[in-house]
């Protein structure tokens, strides 16, 4: 049974390290595009009003 937990802890360390790097990079782009869309939406509403 300890082998199962040994594999699981290393799977956690490897998966989490990979996800951290990947999400750190892609998430930064997501923030930029989200703020861009919010700014554009607000400009559009101001123009319409």
């Amino acid at each position: 049974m300890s082998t199962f937990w040994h594999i699981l802890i290393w799977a956690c360390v490897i998966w989490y390290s990979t996800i951290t790097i990947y999400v750190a990079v892609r998430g930064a782009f997501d923030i930029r595009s989200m703020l861009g869309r919010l700014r554009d939406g607000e400009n559009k509403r101001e123009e319409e009003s």
Partner: protein
Amino acid sequence: MSHFSWLVDGSIVGLYLLGTMVAGLWVRKYVHRVEDFLVAGREMNLYLGIASLAATEFGIITCMYTAQAGYTQGFAGATPGLCQAAAMFVIGVTGFCVKPLRASGAMTLPELFEKRFGQRIRWLSGVVIVLGGLLNMGVFLKIGGDFLCAVCGFDPAYLTLMMGALLLMVCIYTIMGGMLSVLVTDFLQFVVMSVGLLVVTVMILWQVGWDRLVDAVQVHHGEGGFNPLANPTMGWSFLIFQILGNTAATLTWQTTIARLLSAKDAETGQRIYSRTSFFFVCRWMIPGLWGIAALAMLPAGAVGGDTLAAMPKFLSTFLPIGLMGLLVAAMLAADMSTDSSYMLSWGSVIYNDILAPFRKSKWTDRRAIRWNRCIVALIGVYLFVFGLLYKIEGNIWSYLLLTGSIYLSSMSVLLVSCCYWKRANNWGAMGAILLGAVVPMLHLTLEKIPSTAEWAASIGKDVPGIAAFVAAALGMIVGSLIKPKETSAP
């Protein structure tokens, strides 16, 4: 004696706090409408969603109770994480309930329920969600303060001051920027928290060693430390409650579904669920390993009865200067992201659902945002007061799951019925809400009455938790079936 150095570790922590506050306050200029404040204008993309969900669902409280589970139950203590990961993956892949929920365009669960069960059920659902959520969240701040005092070696007399300072910082950026500030700070906090968690874990595996960890579990817990069904403190009732509770939390926990509802579409929401699912295994395994390391390394009698303090006590002398700063920054990041999201989530239900009947006409965005800010501030005051007054007893995770069951049981039954059972109606919804809330609240009350405390403790928290789900389901079925069918006008 703690290894925390004010010069080196304090500088790392200060730098992190400064970065978070600047980022949190900077995005407030993008908040123009109440939708921007509550659900980030529904513009959140996949990776930001993953970072935010992971950061929100991991606070100091999480680290403390999962480490406590590791210390007191060994590797088997991580079982709830496996249950939650499985639930999240299956729901994310199939879209069970979450697909129709996101497609409805609702900002909260009660808003969806109003369409099916009427305005009264929406209001009552809001009350139950807020009651369960705030009771659950009430202990976060104190546990966070306890951890920081233990790890940094501060005098516990400064606990109130630390709790207040931590809360004030979180309140400032959450009140100013709402969900937008929460998302951006969550992202930073995810990165800091993850680096801290990984570095400490690798260091434990490297310096303590796997064999010593396994030996400690074998000596203290035997087979029950590896297999939950062989553990006398767990067993089948524990497992069933974990499966029910974690599935319900995935479907209805306001902070979790807030990410689904902030996603730009249902498909993105589902992908956030399925791709974040394995994080919930890490969420239990990583701090659980820290708890097991405390079991292996601390001398007998160092912990006494306070198993919650074992992990911070171990880390305070295990980590060198520099890494202590990284650990404290990581834990502050974890705690701040959780507190801010939770305050905003419960606040959104108070504004959107509990106050809904009092808004006779549509409020302007400015007025709505002002109200939301006041609600978040009031939740902050409640957290501070509750954290000082309430004394938590026994296993923290069991307390959290039981207080969560006050609404998890009924809301999950309502959600499933709302999406998939045509005969479900407002009588059934009312029955589910009342019966689902009564059982856990009764148990929590009996625990506090001296004459019944021993009896309540002997039952444990798993059976009342399962009973809450059964009662809520029965309430829905019986209530819906006994309501006379409405006859259409000739």
